[in-house]
């Protein structure tokens, strides 16, 4: 068996464990030596992956930029043929490499292929003068990238597909619902649906696909809650459109199906995002009368703002905990970032009518510093607790 590259941090951990195991009599010196020969610090490998990933991302984005440059010296059909050829070359290159020498380079080719497909869509639309700012084109790009990701079981195109898909959905919701309330509910329903997909992947197949879906779910849920928690919503009537009803039904069925075979954490994950959706709807329905003068916030309005802050705080804390439980650092960072942004906006919204100038900034600074301290302390305690749990 060959040597496997692992991070220096993990190698240090293995060395400490081997010493401990030898001391406990679990392995002898010979076995410990043989285990050591199987692993080596892989900094160069990680660096190569990073460079390949960055190169592929820059190359793919460059292709889309090339389309946007609108090179009029070349006729539109030739430009379309050229971009299509580059896309197919990236797809074929990835397959040839995957068959001969699987590795990080395959992922790079697939990233280029997923981004280049977007370039094909935009080049076709540009050549045919499809009207600008058409959300459907981003949706087609996302759908194509997702198809490619599932056909090749590759994570890189999945990330592109989810990013384009989420971008398309948020764009469409903002364009169609024409209300903050409708947008908030649509985002939360999508969060339930994507959480169900993440849990299903964790339980059934393609476990590597779960983290990107989980991250998308957290992003959509935090966005939806952010909108629902805004203190002065212009319109609190929920627009019950056919799209929203179908979305709610699809989210409920997907969550129930995923929960049937999910582990305990998966079930909690689904329950948490569902509860967040219900709480958001209740927050939306709770509409204290808006005062004529913003300086006269009613007691009920203040109570609603405080409740909204508590709900958002709980949701963000849950996603931070989930990040630790699922070993997904990105999730914890997203939750922390969302919490900071939310605290800033809410502090301005709640305290701006009461305080002004320096007092407002001093209060905001104290709230942010306090929140940061509590979040960091909670995270450290959680990590310590998880590490102490015996395997």
């Amino acid at each position, binding site marked *: 068996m060959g040597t496997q590259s692992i991070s220096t941090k993990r190698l240090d951990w293995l060395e400490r464990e081997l010493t401990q195991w030898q001391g406990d009599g679990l392995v002898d010196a010979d076995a410990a030596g043989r285990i050591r020969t199987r692993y080596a610090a892989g900094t160069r490998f990680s660096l190569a992956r990073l460079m390949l990933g960055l190169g592929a991302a820059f190359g793919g984005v460059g292709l889309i930029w090339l*389309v946007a440059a*609108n090179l*009029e010296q070349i006729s539109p059909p030739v430009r379309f043929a050229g971009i299509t050829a580059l896309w197919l070359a990236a*797809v074929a290159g990835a397959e040839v490499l995957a068959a001969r020498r699987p590795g990080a380079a395959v992922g790079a080719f697939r990233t280029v292929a997923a981004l280049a497909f977007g370039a094909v869509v935009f080049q076709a*639309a540009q050549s045919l003068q*499809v009207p*600008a700012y058409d959300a459907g084109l981003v949706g087609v790009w996302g759908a*194509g990238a997702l198809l490619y990701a599932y056909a090749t079981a590759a994570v890189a195109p999945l990330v592109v597909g989810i990013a384009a898909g989420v971008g398309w959905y948020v764009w469409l919701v903002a364009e169609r619902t024409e209300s903050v309330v409708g947008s908030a509910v649509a985002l939360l329903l999508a969060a339930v649906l994507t959480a169900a997909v993440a849990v299903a992947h964790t339980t059934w197949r393609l476990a590597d696909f779960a983290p990107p879906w989980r991250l998308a779910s957290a992003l959509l849920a935090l966005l939806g809650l952010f909108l629902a928690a805004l203190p002065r919503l212009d319109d609190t009537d929920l627009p019950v459109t056919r799209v929203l009803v179908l979305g709610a039904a699809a989210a409920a069925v997907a969550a129930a199906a995923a929960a049937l075979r999910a582990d305990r954490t998966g079930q909690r994950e689904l329950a948490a995002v569902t509860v967040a959706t219900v709480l958001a709807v209740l927050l939306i329905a709770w509409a204290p009368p808006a005062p004529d003068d913003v300086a006269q916030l009613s007691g009920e309005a203040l109570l609603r703002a405080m409740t909204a802050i508590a709900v958002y705080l709980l949701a963000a804390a849950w996603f931070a905990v989930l990040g630790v439980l699922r070993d997904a650092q990105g999730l914890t960072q997203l939750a922390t970032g969302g919490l900071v942004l939310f605290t800033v906006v809410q502090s301005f919204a709640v305290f701006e009518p009461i305080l002004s100038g320096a007092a407002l900034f001093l209060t905001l600074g104290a709230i942010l510093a306090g929140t940061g301290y509590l979040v960091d302390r909670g995270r450290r305690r959680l990590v310590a607790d998880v590490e102490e749990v015996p395997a």
Partner: protein
Amino acid sequence: MSRTVRVVVVCVLQLVLVGAAVAPSLSARVTGQEYVLEVAPVDPIDPFRGAYVTLDYPGLVQPEEPREEGTVFVPLVQAGDVWRGGVPQRDRPSSGPYLRCEADFRLRCGIESLFASQETARRLERQLAEGAVARVKVDGRGNAAVVGVEPR
């Protein structure tokens, strides 16, 4: 099914998706008749497709208040050397050329953008301000695509 076959099938599906995304414009270009409409400019940038000129059609009647959203059909009527839009209607006209449009705060008939390099977009904008017409192809189902813009 081997992965190679799966990937080939997916590539074909992706190409079908591209075709579906641009179907109305493609159909108008390939099967449509050409009409000339008066046109005026506005100019921004699309993040994915670059510079373009937003086209306004003074000859197309905007829907009256209260506006109903959704699909409407605009019959095209010849007025001298250009074509103008008749009153938007919910039912598809039984004869004559017409545009299939989506109505919200304005009519969107698939002919509102003309993509070009930044330099060309600026030149077109000046040209359009002095008066211009758009050559538009319209197919039998009202799908339309801009073919070009020229001075009047």
